[in-house]
């Protein structure tokens, strides 16, 4: 009882300062947390001195977003308002679930930069209409990275990739579906290629009659995997590439660029996006429905969506693709950053081969088929 009283006292005392406290929960790696703490936060504070940012990271991968969801869901279930997260950065899967469950505020129309928030992924995610609820902080593309010294002609299509893997057993790697989203994305790309059902799987409606085609595609993936090295995660694939254990692997482009920038990666490793493409997976900035500081939250996201901020902090500094309208952001970046960003995967490749994730029912069906068939 005494503990509870002390906690309550603390909660009451902290917001008593003059500044508005903005609690920002980041469901992503430490580098994303650092951007908010050292770049976006101070930049925003220079414009809005009355807001104090409190940035918290919740871990990496899908579980990090899941932790944010669990907290907000618990607060909603407890029926107490306001909730203590004002801005959250969550995955596509979790954001779509939160929209579906009515946990988010439809804030995008209130942004000055609302017109820059465009693209298929801000309208629909996993079959849920997310229009108005989400702003991608950045876009992240899954691609195939290769070592030019060992791969003379990088595969331009999945067809070429399967031939190369058959001729070079054990030299291609990815992380399956249990080791991170890049492996999940590769699996989805494989199913799109094998079934030719990209439009149906991403736009719905769900039709169980497609299960046969999906299972057939996954059976082919099981055979393909016999010549593949299954790594223990996104970083594991990059590590195996760097050590020369594999010559080609499925990676996140941002992680590849970041490792190269930090000098941890062979600079010659180059990404390629084979036809018919691989998924792009944005992280969304969202505002919980009962956030205590909604106005400050909206202003902070508006600041992040500004083309200048996107160009300097998101693209140039970290090698991510812009979260908002690239036509407004890319003219603002330097020639060197442009070269680094589009080396191997050009803007045209992205336009042609960036794929969406399937709707949730198909996503779960594919994951289940993978667990049952590939194992």
């Amino acid at each position, binding site marked *: 009882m005494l503990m509870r009283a002390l906690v309550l006292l603390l909660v009451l005392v902290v917001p008593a300062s003059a500044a508005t406290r903005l609690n920002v929960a980041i469901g992503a790696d430490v580098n994303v947390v650092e951007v908010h703490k050292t770049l976006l936060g101070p930049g925003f504070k220079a414009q809005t001195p009355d807001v104090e940012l409190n940035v918290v990271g919740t871990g990496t*991968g*899908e*579980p990090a977003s*899941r932790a944010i*969801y669990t907290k907000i869901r618990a607060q909603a279930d407890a029926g107490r308002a306001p909730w203590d997260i004002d801005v959250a950065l969550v995955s596509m899967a*979790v954001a779509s*679930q939160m929209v579906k469950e009515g946990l988010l505020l439809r804030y995008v129309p209130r942004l000055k930069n609302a017109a820059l928030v465009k693209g298929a992924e801000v309208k629909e995610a996993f079959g849920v209409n997310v229009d108005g609820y989400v702003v991608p902080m950045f876009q992240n593309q899954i691609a195939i990275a290769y070592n030019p010294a060992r791969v003379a002609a990088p595969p331009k299509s999945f067809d070429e990739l399967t031939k190369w893997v058959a001729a070079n057993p054990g030299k291609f790697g*990815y*992380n*399956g*579906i*249990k*080791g*991170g989203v890049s*492996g*999940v994305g590769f699996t989805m790309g494989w199913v799109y290629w094998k079934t030719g059902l990209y439009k149906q799987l991403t736009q719905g409606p769900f039709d169980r009659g497609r299960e046969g085609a999906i299972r057939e595609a996954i059976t082919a993936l099981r055979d393909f*995997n016999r010549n593949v*090295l*299954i*790594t*223990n*995660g996104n970083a*594991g694939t990059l590590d195996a590439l760097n*050590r020369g*254990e594999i010559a080609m692997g499925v990676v996140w482009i941002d992680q590849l660029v970041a490792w190269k920038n930090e000098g941890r990666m062979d600079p010659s490793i180059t990404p390629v996006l084979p036809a018919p493409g691989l998924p792009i997976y944005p992280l969304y900035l969202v505002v919980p429905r009962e956030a205590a500081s909604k106005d400050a939250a909206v202003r902070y996201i508006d600041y992040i969506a500004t083309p200048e901020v996107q160009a300097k902090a998101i693209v140039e500094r970290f090698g991510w693709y812009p979260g908002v309208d690239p036509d407004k952001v890319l003219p603002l970046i330097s020639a060197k950053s442009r070269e680094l960003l589009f080396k191997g995967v050009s803007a045209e490749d992205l336009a042609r081969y960036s794929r969406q994730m399937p709707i949730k029912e198909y996503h*779960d069906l594919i*994951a289940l088929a993978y*667990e*049952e068939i*590939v*194992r």
Partner: protein
Amino acid sequence: MVGVVFVWPLAVSVAASFTRAGAPTLGNYTTVWRLYLRDVGYTLAVSAAGTALTFALAIVVCGWLRVRAFAPVEFLLKVPLFVPFVVVGHALRVFLVPWAPALAGSWGGLVLALAWKHLGLAALLLVGAFRAVDESHLEAARNFGAGTARLTRDVLVPMSAPSLAVSAVLIFSSMLASFSIPLMMSRGGGAQMLMIDVYYRFGQHGDFETAAALGVVGYLMAMGAALVYLQRLAPVKRP
């Protein structure tokens, strides 16, 4: 107090394993049966092999330490007690990858890492148990010409059997529940330790119910080990 901190959460998670979207069902256990039966077997096999390897090493070294006390070796043996699980997983992986990449990601590598980590606990328990054996028994055996190996096999181990059984159950249960080492060591495919599956169901799918069912299977496995031990301890009725 025990009810609030232990029984209540346990009951909630067991109850969750029998529901889906609020409705009672056995569906979560069907999912475990269909998708994770192999992993249950794998987890039992890895834990059994890990426990066996730990004891194979610990009995020899602790027997030697009991017969000829040597403090620096005893200290070194207990070092793994203070090394975090994640660090052990990472270190073994870094150590194995350059010269045995296949072993690093295999069940053998996992057994090695689990045994390394649990050697400290085994040493702590075994050295204590062996020291509890009265010196007069050892001297009597020595008088008949028994060496260190013989003393360990024929005197120390049989006389410490109950303590060895307790240690085995503790170590086996700890290996069943291991998460960090399998996470650091494993590949993204093939059979997985059960706790990795719990994390996957919850983390990737937000599927608390199947995760809870896997947890219940984990409790049952650990309880099975404990029951075997209790049965062995039950007083034998003599006519």
